Each structure stands twice: as structure tokens, then as C-alpha cells.
């Protein structure tokens, strides 16, 4: 093996040219002349200012070698492993041509299978693993955004000892010196990692007393325990909505990104909504307190306090004959009667699912109902996943008691943030002899720890685990850790267990060596290549229901009544429990429903707000809301109010993950008075998450997420930034209908009139566009011979978005952001209406069908650039900076644009985004690496917008041209399309009548938004079909 010295930015004395140097750049170096030293020192002056711990360009090039290591599928980070500058590239590597590697993202105790694009050694884009049966290439906003998490400038960089900068070597020595008699307490998230399980065993052998607490702050094992109570054993329910005809969601947001099965559920759900293609059309009932995207997809939706869901479930279970009906308020509820009938009729085609914040009894009832309906084995499979089903609070209580008595010498928290979730744990934690905090940030839990070890990102370290269905998979790193001190959880555990440094690669391999039969290297290579092992999965079980447990649960819930005012703590749809709080893409991602960014809010219905005497005032296009103090007895949290139609009366909805305090590792910038760099530096002024929103953890008593609360108005004038609703919501909704922007019909209406979308056309539209001549018509640029004779003109790109399957999960928004280098602008700028997203989800509330404003329907509509053939933007640009391509896309020429913004004014869809400031000027160096090298990073003063991922189109164009073939249908996939779990986006060549997009355009549900303007959009929509139960359309809140 060749070993090269790492070239420092500034050679420090003789060390730089050590006697061990085997390679030299010039004779003078060899001679170590002073002249050479001077030159060497000067040569790298630009890099000299960079923090030695940060990833400078130079260091970055050094770590490029990791990709060579991956190409060879050898080790990633071993001392013998060679890190060479990229100027000595590995063989067969073409600079600038990305290579994809399979890996997985650990999330909620399972792995989400991924395919990550690596450009010149750095990960640049994350997609779902297309071969994996659970995701089929799709992903959610979380996976997409985790790329930015890797390059987060606020990540911890050094091992800290008592808060002071130390190093890994010191930590290693300290761990090696731990006596075998130590009493060790390890707290870690639920993890499917086999290596972790093995190390737990080893750890137990290494020390006298080892306790391991599976810290499940997110659900406190409610679902597992609920199902376990019903079946008498631990099972993992996985739903198959594609098989379902009737779905009941009890406060469950199963289509959300943060659901363990988000992608799987969305895809399967979409499959059984494709009435046109497959004839399947399920009916989704949602009974929920908040408005979720699942509620938005629901055919019938009932607003009900979360605290009442238990009683509702009990009544329903009674109606289904699961227990002796104890009459409660819901027994005669129209919904219960109708649901019981529909579910029973659907039998194995029915499925009930409950939200993971609901108490475990609800899950017990749900399990029993599914079993009784025959859904188990059909729409619900129970997997033997070995999930822990014991009471976490008992374990935690024991551990804390032990801590309190001073019986713990070493306390290790692995990748969790318990002092954020439970600030009251600070006291018991202080009792531990040595507290070791392993985490990506110097955060709440790092404070006061004896040791802080920076945790690697999953793209930096080896790991393993299982997907939700149990397919074993490895987590393959794509880059060496950006910071030398960073180590993964298994490496720390390995060090602890053995007293000597263990490398993730070896740890994982040795685990797998034990479980793989046959030729290990061969299988290993296949696993690493595919990302998972398809032949192995959890086995399905069909245990019987313990009727007694069900009756107990039912009776416990039967009398449960929601308090007058309840607060429901949900995990945030974007930043989850706070672990993604420092991710700017997610912070700036508008919540699907509230459209709020950079904040958590106390969402409530207009009537509740009125009752509490709180308001959200719209002034100057910004919301200035009152703040409320939410008190659950003993704990109170202050939050801004957000008034949201569709939330159950008396229910306050809050989300976790905000109010973080993360120490920034970045240096402060000094700017002039007249310079706005401080303002435009979204990443500056401390860590991103710090100071955003409030921590609602205190509201969760013993992990319970639904609590009685007293709410008082505590202030006013808090500015909340949202990307929508700058007009009155009612007025907007009325205009949407008048303008035919979002078109939908019920199944009956569709059957009676398959051309319903035409009826919603606001003005008579003729398919023959020649009736509507345009300035461009006679002389359309694409008709010129130069355009016609290009290599591109054979394809005419177009897109179809199916509103019937789109759930509004936001995956496309972040995928687009990642692919197209879209900058974040911060709360203040979003509030001013300057967000940059190229594709957005327009959310409208639709009252109608007798529904009131309090109880509207919600629809979400993705809006990218329509790529109009008669693009109004092109006609008004004075410098021809936006023009048509031969393949019919509307292109922005950034370096021609002078920024008159006339195009944006003239765009009826308002999809153009202007760079009001130089957003990339202040972009941290590490974040530069998250940028896609194939897409121009825009400067200040230019317009930008969706390009149909032109870089991907051109890549395929080139490839096809070199190979002298035509482009196949489906070869070009846009970023939004690729990420979409619902497969709602179809993209392709309109010139090919057989292409999928052409077929989709022939659907009778197809319409173009604002087609009457004769702009001829290339992006079409397919109208939504809803399948409501006509007997339940009411705003009855029981």
C-alpha cells in the first residue's frame, strides 16, 4: 500500500517534509531548500485561513480517495487505507461522471434503502433504492434532505472532554483505561443493526454490570406494545393499502414522510386509487384531530379530538362485535355505524390504522379489529421483527434509579438527545461517573458530558440493519468522515467493548461473516452492490387475538373522554423529533398543511381560537400571531398560535423538534454596516436550529402525547412565516373553484361524466389552438431550421401530474432543491415572499358538499414550471434570457439574465424565483459540497425556475447520441418524479404517442391549468377522483 502524507495547508516546519516523505514535487523539495519552503507556504495561502478541522477544498480532495476505496469495495477508513489526492485518480474513473452507490438511512429503527449519487468522491444526491421492493426508487423529504445533513456546517468536529477540545486519541486512551469492574449504562435508539446487537453482547461480557436501555422517545413503543397486548407477542404491523378497499385512519398520518412506512404506504395507497387504470378505488376514512395530508386524501373525514379517538375506537370495536358493547357516546354515532358496516363488508379488504401518538390500548383494539375483519394476512401483515414490546418507562425508571444511587460509572448516550426530550434528566445524568455523549452536534445532551464524541453521518460510516420488511442491508459510506474525530455508534461501542479501536468496516463484516453462508466475499459484494439482501426478510406470523386483553383495552377506552381542551404533541413532519432541526432544507420546507416554515406553532381551529381569544393578524403580508402559554399541569410551553380550519374543536396541535440549542462550530463573520451578509447568511448567527420555535417536550408526561391543557394568551405580535394564505383563505378557495385550478369529482360523478374536467373549464377551450394566435405563433423559435435540425428536437418533453395520487408529502420539493441547488433564504425572507422552491405544493381548502369553513376539504397541488409553448415569460424578456429549447422546454439562461423580473410578473403560474440577494456568497464551505456540480449555482439578480431537470435530459441526450440510439421512454427521470412515492408525476416525450406521458395525457381527467390563456402548458394535471360515502358527508362533530 502506498502511503501519502496529508498535505497541510501550511507546512509546519520540518514536519511538512518529513524524512518519511517518499514523494517529492520538485528537486528543491527533495533538497528542502528554504526557497522551496517559502514557495510551498505561499502556494497554499488561500487555504491557510481555513479551519484545520473544517473540510477545506484540499482536505476534501484528500478524502476523495474514499471513493476509490468504495469502487474497489475495500475498506473505507482504515489506517492502512490510502488517501490520495484526486489528482491521482483511480483507474476507470471519468472526472465529473457520477457513480451511484447503494446504502441505507437508519430511521425509526429500520433502514430506508437508498441509492446515492457520488460526484468526484462526494455524495451529491440521494434517491430511493430502485431495486428495493419497499421503495422502488422513491424516497421522502427526509432522505433527500439528509444529504445536507452530511454537510451541515454546525456538525460537531472534535472530541470534547468536559467541553474542551480534545481528540479521539485521548478518548481512546480513556476508554482503554476503563476498569472491567465498571458499571455501564448505554442508552440508544431502537436500532435494527445486527452489529449493534452483537456489540451489546460483547459489551455485556466486557464489564461487570452493563445495562442497555432502548430509548424510544418517538413512540415509547405504543404501537408495538398495543399489538403485543392483542396478540400476546411482539409483532410489527405492515399495511398493504394496495389490497385495501376500505381504510380507516384513526388519527394516523400514514402517508407522511415521518411514518416508518411512509414511502411504502404512499405507493401502495396510490395503487388502489388508480380507478382509471386498474379499476381499484379504495375509500379512505380519516378520523383525526389535526389536518394531516392523510386527512387531505380522505374521502370522508371526521374531526375528532385525539382524546376521543380511544372512545371512538372502543365503540367501533364494539360495533364490530369484539367486545360486549359498553355504551358510550360514540355507540350511536353515524360514523361508527356506517364504518362498522363498511369495514365488515370489505372484510379482508378493510384495514384500520391508528396514529402512533395514540395510547397503546387504541392499537390493541386496532389490532383486534384488523384480525377480526380478516385483514391480517391480507391488508395487514404481522412481521416477526423482534421489536421490543416491554414498557420503556419501567426500564427507564430502573435505569434512572440506578443512576440516582450513583451506581453507574459510565453512561453512554448513542445518537440520542435525552436532555432535549427530558430536560429533567440532567440531574440523574450528573450522577453518572463518566457520561459519554455520542451525537452529531454539541447539543443539549452534550452539555455537561464528560466526553462528547462527534457521531458520523450515515454516509460516512459503515453500518448495517434491516429495512421495515426485514431485508438485511448494509449502510455503506460514500465519503470518509469530514471530521477526523467523528466515529459511528458501533465504533464507539466496539471501542468500549474491546478497549481498542475497532473499525466500522471490520465490525460490520465480522457480524455478517457469522450470518452469511457460502462464499462470504461474493455475498458481501452483492449486498454492498445491491444495498440489501432480497432473499431474507422477517417472517409473517398470524397469532390469535387475546380476547381478554382486547376487552380490557376496550373498557379502559370506553369511558375515556377528551378533556375540554387537549394538546396533541405530534412529531414534526419535517424535522421529526428535532434530529433534523439543523437541516436548512427541512426548516424551510413549508409544512404540507400549515405552510409554516422555520417555526412550530400551536395550531387550532378558528372556533377554538375565538374561544381562547387569540388571533393571527395578517399585516403587510406577514402573520403576526398571538402567543399562548400551554400548560399541562407542571409544565408549560409558549408557542405562537396558528389558526387552521379542519382541526377538531378544543384540540391544540403542536409538533416536536423545535427550540433546539446547538453550539455552532463556525467562526463569526465581521461585516460592514452597509453589508447585508449577516442577514443573508442563513447558516450564520449560530446553528440553524438554535432559536427556532419552542421545545414542546415538557408537555409530554411520561411520553404521553395527548394531554389536557389550559391555554392562556401570553403575548402577541409574533411573526410566523408561511408561504401561503396571504389572502383570506375563504376567498382563495372560492377563486380556485371559479378558476378551475384544481378539478375533482366523486366516483359517481366521474362515471356519469368522465369528461368532468372539461366542465370545470373556466372559459371555452378549443383543442385547436389555431383559434388563439399568439405573437410567437408564426415565428415560434422552435420552428426555425436551426432548432429543428438539432439533436434534441426529436423529443418534446412534457409532464403529467396526477392529482388523484399525489398526497402532498413534500418529497418532490426537497428532491428538486437538492438536485437543482436551490438556496434557502431564512424565515425573514420567506415571510417577505421570497422563498426559492422551484416546485411548490399549493394547498387550498375547499368548502362545499355542505361543509362549513371550519370543516373544509383540503387539496394539495404540486406546481412546477409549466413549460408553456407560448411562454409569456419569453415574450417579455428584453434580453432573450429565457428562451425555448428545441425539445420544447422553457429555459433560463442565467448568464444572460439581467434581472428585470418582467418574466416573473408575466408568469401566470408564478413559478419563477428571483435571487434577491447573493445567497451563495455566504454559503458555508461545507455546504458548497452539497451542491450538484451539473447545475449552475445562481448569482444574485438572476431569475430561476424549474428546468424539467434539463441537466438530466442533456445527460441522456449525450449518452444516446454517443451510443447512436434513440432515447427510451422512461430514460429521463426528473428529480421530483424520481422521489415521488405516489408515482404521481409522469415525464417523457410527448412526440412519442406511445410514451407513458403521452398515454397519461390522453386520460379524460387531463386538464391544463389556466389553459384559456393560450399559453399551452406542457405540464398537465389529471383531475382527482374522490370516493366519499354519501351518507357521512356532514360536519357532525358528535
Amino acid at each position: 500500500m502506498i502511503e501519502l502524507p496529508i498535505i497541510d495547508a501550511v507546512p509546519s516546519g520540518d514536519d511538512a517534509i518529513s524524512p518519511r516523505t517518499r514523494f517529492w514535487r520538485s528537486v528543491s523539495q527533495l533538497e528542502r531548500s528554504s526557497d522551496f519552503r517559502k514557495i510551498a507556504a505561499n502556494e497554499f495561502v488561500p487555504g491557510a485561513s481555513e479551519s484545520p478541522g473544517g473540510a477545506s477544498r484540499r482536505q476534501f480532495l484528500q478524502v476523495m480517495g474514499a471513493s476509490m476505496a468504495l469502487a474497489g469495495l475495500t475498506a473505507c477508513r482504515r489506517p492502512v487505507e490510502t488517501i490520495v489526492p484526486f489528482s491521482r485518480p483511480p483507474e476507470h474513473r471519468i472526472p465529473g461522471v457520477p457513480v451511484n452507490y447503494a446504502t441505507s438511512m437508519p430511521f425509526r429503527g429500520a433502514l430506508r434503502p437508498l441509492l446515492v449519487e457520488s460526484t468526484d468522491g462526494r455524495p451529491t444526491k440521494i434517491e430511493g433504492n430502485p431495486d428495493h421492493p419497499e421503495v422502488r426508487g422513491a424516497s421522502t423529504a427526509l432522505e433527500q434532505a439528509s444529504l445536507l445533513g452530511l454537510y451541515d456546517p454546525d456538525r460537531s468536529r472534535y472530541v470534547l472532554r468536559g467541553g474542551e477540545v480534545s481528540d479521539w486519541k485521548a478518548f481512546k486512551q480513556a476508554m482503554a483505561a476503563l476498569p472491567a469492574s465498571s458499571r455501564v449504562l448505554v442508552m440508544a435508539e431502537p436500532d435494527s443493526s445486527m452489529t449493534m446487537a452483537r456489540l451489546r453482547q460483547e459489551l455485556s461480557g466486557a464489564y461487570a454490570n452493563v445495562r442497555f436501555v432502548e430509548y424510544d422517545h418517538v413512540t415509547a413503543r405504543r404501537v408495538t406494545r398495543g399489538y403485543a397486548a392483542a396478540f400476546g407477542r411482539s409483532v410489527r404491523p405492515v399495511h398493504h393499502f394496495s389490497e385495501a378497499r376500505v381504510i380507516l385512519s384513526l388519527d394516523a398520518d400514514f402517508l407522511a414522510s415521518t411514518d416508518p412506512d411512509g414511502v411504502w404506504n404512499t405507493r401502495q395507497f396510490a395503487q388502489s386509487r388508480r380507478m382509471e387504470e386498474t379499476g381499484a378505488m379504495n375509500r379512505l376514512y380519516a378520523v383525526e384531530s389535526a389536518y394531516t395530508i392523510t386527512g387531505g386524501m380522505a374521502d370522508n373525514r371526521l374531526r375528532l379530538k385525539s382524546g376521543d379517538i380511544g372512545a371512538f375506537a372502543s365503540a367501533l370495536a364494539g360495533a364490530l362485535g369484539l367486545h360486549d358493547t359498553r355504551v358510550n357516546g360514540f355507540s350511536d354515532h353515524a360514523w361508527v355505524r356506517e364504518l362498522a358496516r363498511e369495514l365488515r363488508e370489505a372484510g379482508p379488504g378493510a384495514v384500520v390504522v391508528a396514529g402512533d401518538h395514540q395510547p397503546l390500548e387504541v392499537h390493541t383494539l386496532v389490532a383486534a379489529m384488523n384480525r377480526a375483519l380478516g385483514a391480517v394476512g391480507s391488508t395487514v401483515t404481522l412481521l416477526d421483527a423482534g421489536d421490543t414490546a416491554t414498557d420503556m418507562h419501567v426500564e427507564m425508571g430502573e435505569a434512572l434509579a440506578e443512576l440516582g444511587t450513583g451506581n453507574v460509572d459510565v453512561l453512554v448516550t448513542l445518537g440520542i438527545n435525552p436532555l432535549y426530550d427530558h430536560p429533567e434528566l440532567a440531574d440523574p445524568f450528573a450522577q453518572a461517573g463518566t457520561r459519554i455523549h455520542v451525537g452529531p452536534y454539541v447539543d443539549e445532551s452534550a452539555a455537561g458530558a464528560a466526553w462528547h464524541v462527534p457521531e458520523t453521518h450515515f454516509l460516512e460510516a459503515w453500518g448495517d440493519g434491516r429495512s421495515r420488511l426485514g431485508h438485511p442491508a448494509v449502510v455503506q459510506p460514500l465519503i470518509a468522515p469530514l471530521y477526523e474525530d467523528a466515529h459511528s455508534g458501533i465504533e464507539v461501542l466496539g471501542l468500549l467493548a474491546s478497549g481498542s479501536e475497532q473499525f466500522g468496516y471490520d465490525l460490520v463484516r465480522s457480524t455478517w461473516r457469522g450470518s452469511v453462508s457460502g462464499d462470504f466475499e461474493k455475498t458481501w459484494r452483492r449486498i454492498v452492490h445491491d444495498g440489501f439482501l432480497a432473499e431474507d426478510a422477517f417472517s409473517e406470523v398470524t397469532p390469535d387475538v387475546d380476547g381478554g386483553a382486547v376487552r380490557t383495552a376496550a373498557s379502559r377506552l370506553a369511558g375515556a373522554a377528551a378533556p375540554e381542551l387537549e394538546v396533541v404533541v405530534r412529531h414534526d413532519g419535517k424535522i421529526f423529533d428535532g434530529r433534523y432541526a439543523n437541516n436548512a432544507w427541512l426548516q424551510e420546507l413549508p409544512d404540507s398543511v400549515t405552510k409554516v416554515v422555520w417555526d412550530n406553532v400551536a395550531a387550532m381551529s378558528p372556533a377554538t381560537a375565538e374561544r381562547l381569544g387569540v388571533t393571527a393578524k395578517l399585516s403587510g403580508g406577514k402573520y403576526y400571531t398571538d402567543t399562548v402559554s400551554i400548560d399541562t399541569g407542571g409544565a408549560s410551553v409558549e408557542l405562537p398560535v396558528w389558526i387552521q380550519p379542519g382541526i377538531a374543536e378544543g384540540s391544540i396541535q403542536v409538533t416536536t423538534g423545535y427550540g433546539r440549542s446547538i453550539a455552532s462550530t463556525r467562526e463569526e463573520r465581521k461585516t460592514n454596516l452597509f453589508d447585508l451578509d449577516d442577514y443573508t447568511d442563513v447558516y450564520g448567527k449560530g446553528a440553524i436550529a438554535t432559536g427556532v420555535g419552542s421545545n414542546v417536550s415538557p408537555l409530554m408526561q411520561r411520553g404521553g402525547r395527548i394531554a389536557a391543557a389550559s391555554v392562556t394568551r401570553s403575548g402577541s405580535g409574533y411573526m410566523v412565516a408561511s408561504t401561503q394564505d396571504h389572502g383570506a383563505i375563504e376567498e382563495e378557495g372560492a377563486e380556485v373553484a371559479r378558476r378551475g385550478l384544481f378539478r375533482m369529482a366523486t366516483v359517481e360523478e366521474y362515471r356519469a361524466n368522465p369528461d368532468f374536467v372539461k366542465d370545470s373549464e373556466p372559459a371555452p377551450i378549443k383543442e385547436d389552438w389555431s383559434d388563439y394566435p399568439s405573437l410567437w405563433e408564426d415565428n415560434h423559435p422552435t420552428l426555425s431550421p436551426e432548432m429543428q435540425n438539432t439533436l434534441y428536437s426529436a423529443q418534446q418533453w412534457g409532464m403529467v401530474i396526477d392529482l388523484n395520487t399525489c398526497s402532498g408529502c413534500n418529497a418532490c420539493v426537497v428532491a428538486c432543491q437538492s438536485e437543482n441547488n436551490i438556496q434557502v433564504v431564512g424565515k425573514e425572507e420567506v415571510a417577505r415572499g421570497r422563498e426559492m422552491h422551484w416546485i411548490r405544493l399549493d394547498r387550498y381548502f375547499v368548502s362545499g358538499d355542505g361543509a362549513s369553513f371550519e370543516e373544509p376539504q383540503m387539496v394539495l397541488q404540486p406546481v412546477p414550471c409549466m413549460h408553456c409553448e407560448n411562454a409569456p415569460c419569453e415574450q417579455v424578456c428584453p434580453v432573450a434570457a429565457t428562451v425555448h429549447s428545441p425539445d420544447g422546454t422553457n429555459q433560463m439562461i442565467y448568464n444572460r439574465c439581467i434581472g428585470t423580473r418582467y418574466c416573473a410578473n408575466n408568469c401566470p403560474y408564478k413559478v419563477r424565483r428571483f435571487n434577491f440577494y447573493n445567497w451563495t456568497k455566504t454559503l458555508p464551505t461545507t455546504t458548497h459540497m452539497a451542491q450538484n456540480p451539473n447545475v449552475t449555482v445562481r448569482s444574485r439578480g438572476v431569475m430561476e425556475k424549474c428546468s424539467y431537470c434539463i441537466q438530466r435530459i442533456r445527460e441522456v441526450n449525450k449518452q444516446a447520441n454517443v451510443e447512436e440510439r434513440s432515447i427510451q421512454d422512461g430514460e429521463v427521470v426528473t428529480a421530483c418524479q424520481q422521489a415521488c412515492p405516489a408515482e404521481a408525476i409522469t415525464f417523457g416525450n410527448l412526440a412519442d404517442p406511445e410514451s407513458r406521458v403521452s398515454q397519461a395525457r390522453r386520460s379524460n381527467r387531463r386538464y391544463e391549468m389556466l389553459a384559456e390563456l393560450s399559453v399551452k402548458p406542457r405540464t398537465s394535471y389529471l383531475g382527482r377522483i374522490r370516493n366519499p360515502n354519501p351518507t357521512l358527508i356532514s360536519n357532525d362533530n358528535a
Partner: protein
Amino acid sequence: MPVSSADSEKTLASTADYHAEVPLVQGNLSFHDITELVTAHTEKKTPLAWWGAFSLANIGLLLLVGMIAYLFWNGTGVWGLNNPVGWGYAIVNFVFWVGIGHAGTLISAILFLFRQQWRTGINRAAEAMTIFAVMCALVFPTIHVGRVWAIYWTLPIPNQMEMWPQFKSPLLWDVFAVSVYFTVSLVFWYVGLIPDIATMRDRAKTKVRRMVTGVLSMGWTGANRHWRNYEKAYLLLAALATPLVLSVHSVVSFDFAVSIVPGWHTTIFPPYFVAGAIFSGFAMVVTLMVIARKVYGIQNIITIEHLEKMNIIILLTGSMVGFAYITEFFIAWYSGVQYEQYAFLNRAFGPYAWAYWTMMTCNLVFPQFFWIRKLRRSVPFMFAISIFVNIGMWFERFVITVTSLHRDYLPSSWDYYTPTFVDVLTFVGTFGLFFTLFLLFLRFIPMVAIAEVKGVMPQADPHFYDHEGDGHDHVHDVSLAADQDHTQS
């Protein structure tokens, strides 16, 4: 028609009362008096008051420079613009200033062609105002682009890439229309200045003054041939400027009318904008002249008759503009286009209703007071109204630009526009630029076209002195008559 003879004046005055024309220059001034009255201000020691005003204007100018520097350093984000509202104060101010820049050339060219001789008293100052207003206007399209260093790409400069501007864009037409208008106005103004500069040259006492005016007067001697050529040139330039008066604001209106934004896409925009521009231009002339004639003691040259005539034009164009406002509403309803209907209802009753009703009050209601003769001859009242009209016309552009944009086709994108301090101070700063230039004009250039005024004085009538011994008294009579209230019989 002008007063041509004392006889006709007398007859008209006795028979047709109000319709009788009074002499354009009053106070029984001789030719020399006029010369003295006008040029004296350029020759005497700079008054302290001028310095005071000039300093104030300079503070405004510095403010403008400072705001532009701040804008260039940081980017367009320092303004209040956002996603649906891509044009705000900058474009509003641009249209506002271009509109103001309409009166001068209209007075000089169109009224010249129509032989409206009363124009002579005010045309010089009005033209100067035009040029300075257009300069203020030109600031905005230049600085409003995101990448100001590339603004020259809007000009058709031959280049090796054969990359031309996009000739279908109304913004490009704007570039041509406004620059042509500015050039022609400037030349027209300068040509009109030549005889007066020659007068100044002849009176010059210092060497520098002699040299500067000597060069600028281009060898003018007042020879017959000079006068003949001058009159021809002036007529030709007037003929050239006349269509420009109409075209420049029509083209500016195309910025809006050619787009597809509801509230912008309106075919009546060109005439409506031209009427509005004349309206605001005359209001600005009134504002400036009411002060200037008082300060410089030229009430005999810019008489109340002049002001009244301007007020009548304000009344006329204000009513035209008001008619256009109502027509827009009618068309929005009559067209049946829901976007259009929403846009106009939103104007009147939406979040910017305050701006709309400010505009309606200032532009439609206030000028109607000029139906009353007493009010349109009251200097304080017309000053107040002219200020209101200026405010109203600024709001008209604000209403058109911002309220149309802030809520267009997709309700999801609706937002609100709030200007920042930079927006406001930049606008204030342009007044600094304007008044700096205007004060320099008042100080160094004859603010009244001396030669032209002399041509319309009663004394200029070749027959004025025909009745020996009578003339003097007669002039006296006329001037007395002018001082009297014309309503008396």
C-alpha cells in the same frame, strides 16, 4: 388666438366678456423690462435662499446616491419586492416621473403647433422640468434590474456573439421610446434656448460667462437668416416631438398592456396613460410655477391666466383619467373574464383599497373643483390641488403596478407588497436630483423664453404703435383691464 391689436382686444372684451383674451404679458412691460426681469436672476449674486434650497436638494441627491450604492452593494433584496410583486416602487416611480416629463414637451411642441401662444410664458421651465423628470425616471429602470452591470445588454450593440436584445419585449421598446424622447426633448429645449443664451452673452460681464454663453449660443447674432433658420428648426423639432409626446407614454403603458396580468392587460392603456401623463405633468408645472413666479417676481409673465389655462387642462385630463378608471371597471364586468373581474374588485375592495381610493379622490374628485372659476384662479387652492394630483397620479401607478401583481392567477401565490426604507428614500432622493437640477436651471438659465415672450407681447404687434399718442394709454387700459375681475361687464 393671441391678442393682435388693441382694437380687437377692446371689442372682444366688451362683447364676449370672459372669452376675451387678455395680454399674455401684463404690467405694461417693455422688451427691455422682460430681458431684465428674466436674465437678472442668472446674473446677480446667488441669493442665500437659493443656497438653502440647493443644499436641501443636495441632501436629497446624496440620499439617492447613497441608496443606490446600498442597492448595488447588496442586491435588489433591499427593496420590498417579493415573488408575485416583481415590480414595485422603482417602476411606479419610473412611470410617475415619465408622466411628469410629459407636460414640457406637450406645452412646447403640441401647443406650439396649435399656436397656443400662452405657452411662451411657461414653456422653458416646463421643458426643463420635462428633461429633469425624464432623468429622474431613467434612474429607475437602470437600477431596478438585478444585475445592473449588464444593463447595456438591452441596447442593440453589435457584438461578436450576434446576440441582440429581444425585440418583442415592451421593456426594449421602452428603452428606445424614453431615450428618443429624452434626446428630442433636450435638443428641442436647447434650440429654443439659443436666442436667449445669445442675449445673456451680450450682457455678460465676466470672461468665463462670455465664453460659456458664447459657445452655447452658437454664434447667434439675431440676423434675419438666423431667425428664419431658427423658426424652421423649431417648427420641425416641434413636429418631431409631437408624436413622441404621445408615443412615449403609450410605449410605457405597453409594459403593462402587453403582459397577461389581469389589470395590466388592458387595451385602453395607451390613451389613458397619455392623458394621465399630461394630467400629472401639468399639475407639476403648476406646482413649480406657482412658487417660481412668486419667488422670482415674474407674475406679469406667468400670469394668473396662464395658471388658469393649465388648470383647465388639469380638469380636462383628470376627467379623462377618471373616465378611464370607470371604463376599466365596466370592461372587467362586461368581458366576463373572472380574473379581470377579480383584479378590479380587489383593487377597490382588497388589501390595497386605501391606495385605490386615494387615487380616485385625488385624481377624479379634486380636479372637479376647477369647474368653479374662483377656485381655479386661486393660487393657494390650485397649489393644493396640484399637489393632490401629483399624489394621486403616483398612486395610480402604484395601484396599477402593485395591486395587479399581488393577486393574479393562482391564489396560492398571492402576497402583499410593503416597501422598505430603501424604496421610500430612493424615491425621496429622486426629488433631490430633480430639484438640484431645477435649481441649477433657475439659477443659470433664463427660466422664461425671452425671445418667444417678446414675440407675443402687445408691443410686438407691428401695428401697436400705429395710433400715435394712443398706444401708451391703450396699453395702460389693457393692463388695467387685466387686473380687474373679468366677470364684471
